[in-house]
């Protein structure tokens, strides 16, 4: 059998820990020879200052719709792609925990890797989510670097 286009999608804005296994399972497909994933995790420091934890806030309804749009654009740009899963955490996220997962399956590695990389870049540019870094002596809303494609 020959599958064409995305047959498997999974999008999640989650208040509970994200599961890499679940994302990989969501994009697994007998026609896929490659699965590329990206996971963003909370670092213990930013420019030398110790991070205690992060707080993510989302415009929930728009964020879910945005994840779907990113998946649709990936399917347009890389038609062989067989699956896209994107999940983003909201609320308090501890150091070492995963804040975002992007997983893409495709018949061959080039498309899976390129689409995954594009997906996380796009997400950082357009997903309506805000991040507060909490230090022992203060806190700051951390903006992503500009440079992604405009929405």
């Amino acid at each position, binding site marked *: 059998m020959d599958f064409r286009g995305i047959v498997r999608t999974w999008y999640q804005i989650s208040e509970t820990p994200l599961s890499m296994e679940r994302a990989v399972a969501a994009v697994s497909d007998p026609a896929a020879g490659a699965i590329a994933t990206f996971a963003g995790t909370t670092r213990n420091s930013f420019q030398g200052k110790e991070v205690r934890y992060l707080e993510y*806030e989302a415009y929930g*309804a*728009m964020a879910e719709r945005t994840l779907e749009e990113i998946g649709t654009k990936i399917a347009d740009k890389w038609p062989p792609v067989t699956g896209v899963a994107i999940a983003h955490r909201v609320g308090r996220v501890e150091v070492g925990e995963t*804040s*975002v997962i992007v997983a893409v399956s495709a018949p061959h590695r080039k498309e899976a890797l390129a689409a995954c990389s594009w997906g996380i870049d796009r997400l950082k540019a357009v*997903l*309506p989510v*805000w*991040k507060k870094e909490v230090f022992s002596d203060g806190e700051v809303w951390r903006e*992503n670097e500009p440079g992604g494609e405009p929405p």
Partner: protein
Amino acid sequence: MTRWTVRLFGPAREAIGTDRTEVDVGEPATAAAVVEAVAARHPEIADLLPRSRVAVEREYVDPEARLRPGDEIAILPPVGGG
């Protein structure tokens, strides 16, 4: 003048201390006109607004976009997801 409810997020929400505000805007009611009215009412986020974007009905819009009654309007400061 029409009254519009505007949702606020992240640093804008925190600076104002509420997750929505109301502003009165004359015709034509554009996204830019709403931002201007929010800036006038909440000078504490005046520096944030020029870097913010506007979403209408959960989609990014250009400043000149016209608003329709009942539209869900949101001001989105620079995002930090990922």
